[in-house]
């Protein structure tokens, strides 16, 4: 019988090796696999290339990974949030490399990798500094930039419900980068709020089918998360 459940986040990150490329889902808190990230920070792998919309913050989770010097390179669209001091310090000291990618291009490059495509032409960025040196051609009457698929060794995502087959369902704005990221890595683990029996997610409500997912790990939301719901932020 197929059983993709893991008991702990520690198991989820056990295989991460030095130099690995990691897709991290989430946009802000929704869909961020915060507890897997914290386990990853404690696991100790280094020289990581991390793909995420932002750069995290604080000293735990993604911000912590960066703070601890485990991230060699960040591929992101908006790493410049004023709260993300660790990234900014390391970046200004030249201790972390940054590949800055427009948000839609970042999502599409990840999707392309999961979909087996080699790359695509997008109008976004043509003629700007972010397309400097990139191949362009005119398609549908517009100048477009060639962007390559972005593959990874690991993807860590966060969903709301999951089952032992790896089927995932997201709440509200949790889907964001998680849906494409779950398709684009060799090893995919989802942090979930609730493990449900097979059939517990309606076939029409499966947002990430289990074929894309290697493991699910059920966690209790971190108090920080719960605080938000009751106190605001």
């Amino acid at each position, binding site marked *: 019988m197929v059983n993709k459940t893991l008991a702990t986040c520690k198991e989820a990150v056990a295989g991460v090796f030095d130099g690995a490329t990691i897709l991290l889902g989430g946009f802000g808190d929704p869909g961020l696999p915060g507890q897997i990230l914290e386990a990853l920070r404690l696991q100790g792998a280094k020289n990581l290339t991390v793909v995420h919309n932002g750069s995290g913050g604080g000293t735990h989770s993604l911000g912590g990974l960066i703070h601890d010097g485990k991230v060699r390179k960040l591929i992101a669209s908006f790493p410049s949030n004023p709260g993300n001091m660790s990234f900014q310090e390391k970046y200004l000291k030249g201790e972390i490399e940054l590949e*800055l990618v427009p948000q*839609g291009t970042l999502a*599409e490059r990840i999707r392309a990798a999961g979909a087996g495509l080699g790359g695509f032409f997008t109008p976004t960025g043509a003629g700007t500094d972010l397309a400097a040196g990139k191949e362009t051609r005119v398609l549908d009457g517009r100048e477009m930039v060639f962007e390559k698929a972005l593959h990874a060794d690991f993807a860590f995502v966060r969903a709301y419900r999951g089952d032992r087959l790896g089927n995932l369902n997201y709440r509200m704005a949790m889907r964001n980068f998680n*849906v494409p990221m779950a398709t684009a890595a060799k090893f995919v683990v989802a942090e979930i709020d609730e493990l449900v029996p097979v059939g517990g997610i309606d076939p029409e409500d499966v*947002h990430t089918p289990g074929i894309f997912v290697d493991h699910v790990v059920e966690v209790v939301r971190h108090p920080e998360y*719960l605080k938000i719901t009751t106190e605001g*932020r």
Partner: protein
Amino acid sequence: MSLTREGIAYRVASELPDGSYVNLGIGIPTLVSSFIGPNKEVFFHSENGILGMGPLAQPGHEDPDLVNAGKQYVTLLPGASVFDHPTSFSMIRGGHVDYAVLGALEVAANGDLANWRTPGEKVPGVGGAMDLAFGVRNVIVTMTHITNKGKPKILSKCTLPLTAPHCVTHIFTDMAVIDVTPEGLVLREVAPGLDPKTIQSHTEAPLRVSPNCKEMNVPANFLAAPAAR
């Protein structure tokens, strides 16, 4: 007189047609949604995967899984939908979003937009700004007409790195409403008490004055003395 930030947002809100799909950037643009009256339906898009976004969540009623692109807790209106990033940026890049309302550092007479990288900025970040500027049919810029050092932001040519060339279609400032046309910038409205000559004096790029140029229709509580700038 010049418009307050709320005044600019109010004026933009009255420009958005019934049934339009609109993405609001951070800053003045965020204020626009408050000024859509009850007589039209405007659908707000958030690039992290929301269409039909409602007001900010009331304190104590935040949904931890529902934030906007600025990471604020928001609500959904009836008829809203949620989706993933590829779908959200298909809406933007595919030309389905009708209006993007964005802040700007500089706008050029040909519609070039610079709003993603300031000169002194040490860590760059672009987010969805380029996708919006390249993908959305009508790009409305909202900003103060001049910098806080009194320098014009509407230029013959941008000096800062571009977000996108030839993308801005309308400029709404505290002083004026300006359309970007193939023939250059056209002054369509002026703030109450200001005249086209004054606007031009604060604008580096040449302005043509529309034959229909008029004073903006903005409630008095959204107006400030020029000194307030």
